[in-house]
């Protein structure tokens, strides 16, 4: 990969031209392109003024080089970043590529269809119906009427406009307009997608679909040209990058190298870590490692609350992660994971039930915050019965030092590990193990132990609680459905002697569940009631046991008290 600066090489030619890479892969090629504007020295706005000055011979023209001698090649399916300050020539370059402008000198060659960066809904007319606007906008983007007719149903379906299709556009919400615009612009796969860092995808619910479509495009070979002045973004997501300064191409190559040069020039603090800058071997063409992306599953209190990602964040996902995401998308999940590309996995719980995961996480988070504050970086956590790893991953995302997820099924462990890889988390691991069978000494002690939806599957809940206690240094959080209460006392050997009941346990037949692939491990379970669980935890030596109350709008089983969460402190 060649690195070019003006001084080394007056005519920058990307070395890719010289490699034997097949030309079939080339999508954009600029050959020694210059754009020179000739403009009056002062901006003359009116014709009257122009004529007056012309007569007085006061019109002085000056030349302004928007681009000087730029050569560049973009290939199929690469993500190419263009950095530079305002006025560096980035938008001129985009205009050349999208055929809006012709070069003064040199040659621009583009193969395939370009999806332009329109503000969503540009070119729509408010008085026309959605239907009419689809045809107007489609033909604006260069489709023929017949092509738009073919794409029409797909566009309507994708944009979720439904019955509004014949209503005038002025009656649409911003979200609807945005959806329609995106649906038309991406009705067929473009060969080149131009992405501006500030462009957002529209409203929240629609974002996932947008993300899915863009990711599909990428996988099918769409080249992405990203224009930004954020060097951090370029480094994180681009395969290659170029730096423009005052119309000159100052460098083209590996993003890390380009960003380094760029920062050197402007004496900026680099977002790269200290050690990477000092490294004196920039020739080595190592792939720029994506920084462990702080995953985006959940940031807010409620897990299902969506964030609006920009297009650039969505394409920020590395190819390796995309391949892993593909595996995740082919599975069914217990948790409605939202992947870094913005897509959601298929969740077999209906959404009205799936909210319980978010509710429980919000409750766990509240407990941990109250106990340890905001900084969890010193915490070691154990997630017993981690299933597909949801809570382990959450803890790891919140920077716990070390998280171990324990589950009795290899399948769950594998799934959880897939998610861990997708989120590129290094502080969590998953282990095979059945809490009812393991020796407490086989594991170290943890600051926090979670045991969510575990206790009601156990035939020996007291033994399980003892093991959990032995593994916990600080805090044990239990969440489970609870059995109905029985109060009172029972005879103890004679009618005169009575023992008070400390609560109830319900005996349950799990034969059916145990036949299911991911059902119960045992055919029997002995499920504690609320009073018995609290009493037991105290009896086992926890110094305090507190009930964690759900938010009023949480899942019905939590608010009604059919399930409960308790926190036991050592």
């Amino acid at each position, binding site marked *: 990969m060649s690195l070019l600066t003006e001084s080394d090489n007056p005519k920058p030619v990307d070395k890719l031209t010289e490699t034997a890479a097949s030309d079939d892969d080339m999508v954009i090629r600029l050959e020694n392109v210059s754009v020179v504007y000739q403009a009056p020295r002062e901006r003359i706005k009116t014709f009257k003024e122009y004529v007056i000055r012309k007569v007085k011979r006061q019109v002085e023209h000056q030349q302004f080089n928007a681009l000087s001698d730029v050569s560049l090649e973009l290939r199929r399916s690469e993500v190419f970043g263009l950095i530079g300050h305002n006025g560096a020539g980035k938008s001129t370059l985009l205009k*050349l590529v*999208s055929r*809006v*402008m012709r070069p003064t000198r040199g040659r621009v*060659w583009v193969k395939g269809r370009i999806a332009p960066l329109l503000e969503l809904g540009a070119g729509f007319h408010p008085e026309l119906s959605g239907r009419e606007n689809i045809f107007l906008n489609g033909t*604006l983007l260069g489709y023929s*009427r017949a092509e738009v007719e073919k794409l029409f149903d797909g566009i309507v379906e994708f944009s979720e406009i439904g019955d509004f299709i014949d209503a005038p556009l002025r009656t649409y919400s911003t979200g609807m307009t945005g959806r329609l615009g995106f649906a038309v612009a991406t009705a067929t796969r473009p060969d080149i997608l131009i992405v501006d860092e500030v462009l957002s995808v529209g409203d929240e619910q629609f974002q996932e679909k947008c993300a899915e479509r863009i990711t599909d495009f990428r996988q099918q070979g769409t080249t992405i040209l990203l224009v930004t002045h954020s060097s951090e973004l370029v480094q994180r997501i681009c395969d290659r990058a170029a730096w423009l300064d005052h119309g000159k191409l100052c460098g083209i190559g590996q993003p890390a190298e380009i960003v380094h040069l760029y920062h050197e020039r402007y004496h900026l603090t680099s977002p790269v870590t200290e050690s990477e800058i000092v490294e004196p071997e920039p020739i080595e063409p190592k792939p720029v490692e994506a920084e462990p992306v702080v995953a985006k599953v959940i940031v807010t209190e409620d897990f299902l609350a969506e964030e609006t990602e920009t297009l650039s964040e969505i394409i920020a996902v590395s190819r390796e992660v995309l391949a892993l995401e593909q595996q995740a998308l082919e599975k069914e999940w217990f948790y409605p994971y939202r992947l870094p590309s913005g897509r959601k996995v298929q969740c077999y719980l209906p959404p009205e039930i799936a909210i319980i995961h978010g509710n429980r996480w919000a409750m766990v988070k509240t407990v941990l915050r109250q106990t340890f504050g905001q900084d969890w970086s010193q915490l070691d956590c154990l997630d017993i019965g981690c299933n597909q790893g949801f809570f382990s991953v959450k803890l790891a995302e919140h920077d716990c030092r070390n998280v171990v997820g324990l589950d009795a099924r290899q399948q769950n462990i594998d799934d959880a590990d897939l998610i861990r890889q997708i989120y590129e988390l290094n502080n969590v691991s998953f282990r095979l193990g059945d809490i009812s069978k393991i020796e407490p000494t086989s594991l170290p002690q943890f600051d926090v132990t979670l045991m969510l939806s575990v206790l009601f599957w156990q035939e020996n809940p007291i033994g399980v609680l003892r093991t959990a206690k032995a593994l916990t240094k600080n805090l044990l959080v239990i969440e489970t459905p609870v059995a109905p209460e029985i109060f009172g006392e029972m005879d103890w050997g004679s009618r005169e002697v009575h023992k008070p009941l400390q609560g109830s346990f319900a005996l349950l037949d799990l034969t059916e569940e145990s036949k299911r692939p991911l059902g119960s491990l045992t055919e029997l379970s002995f499920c504690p009631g609320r009073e018995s669980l609290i009493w037991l935890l105290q009896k086992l030596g926890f110094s305090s046991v507190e009930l964690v109350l759900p938010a009023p709008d949480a899942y019905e089983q939590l608010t009604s008290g059919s399930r409960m969460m308790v926190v036991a402190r050592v």
Partner: protein
Amino acid sequence: MSAQINKINFAERQSAKMQVYDSALLNNPALSELKDLWQYRDLLMQLIARNIKTRYKRSVLGILWTMLNPLLMMLVLTFVFSNVFRFQQPHYAAYALAGVALWNFFAQTTTGAMSELIWGGNLMNKIYLPRSIFAASALGTSLVNLLLTLIPLFVVMAITGVPFRPALLILPLPILLTAMFALGVALILSRVAAYFADVLEMYQIFLTAWMYLTPIIYPKEIISPDLQWLFNLNPMYHLIEIFRAPLLIGWLAGPKTVLASTAAAVVTLAFGWWYFSRKADELAYRI
């Protein structure tokens, strides 16, 4: 360099269905503008449909306005000129209405082209469109309006007893010539309007003056012979003449008039097209 270009050509052949844009192949802007306009003909139709639909979408009478508007104007003119000024123009109502209809066709095309180009400025900065499409859609829109105005014109002719003669069949010719002339003017103005913001306003003042200097609402007979040369220089004067002739006289206008208007139409369009397409690329960053 030539070896590389050959390689590109080879790649081009291999993926023939992929559209390829090569700035080096754009040697003849006038021709490529024409080709692109043809490629975007469906968009042209959409733009015309949009203009017509949106103009009347929120009015009760809708498209009827296109016909009522010149009709009402004609009524006013007929009253003023027949009773106040007492012109002796036979069939004055049809005479005025025909003149107004053709003038409006010209005026709407030229002003419409400028405002549409300015409307499209934002789009043109982001995606490629043949720039002439805005002038063309303004022309198409005014043409539809003209055709609709022919209906009240024929009604007025029938009421006021103007005979319908076979000469009406040559009416498309004057319309075509006017369209060519209007498009030529529209293209020239569009290019200038892209550079200077005040062109549209100045043109509108100019247009009013031009209208009064053209025998539209007054009979051409009132022109003083001393000034006839000035009128002869006015292409719209000839175009309106050859438009009215088949309607009112029932025959083609005189050969001089036909020749003058054909020349004006062809030369203006040819020049306008060349002048506009030569700088079509620059328009995007001028607007």
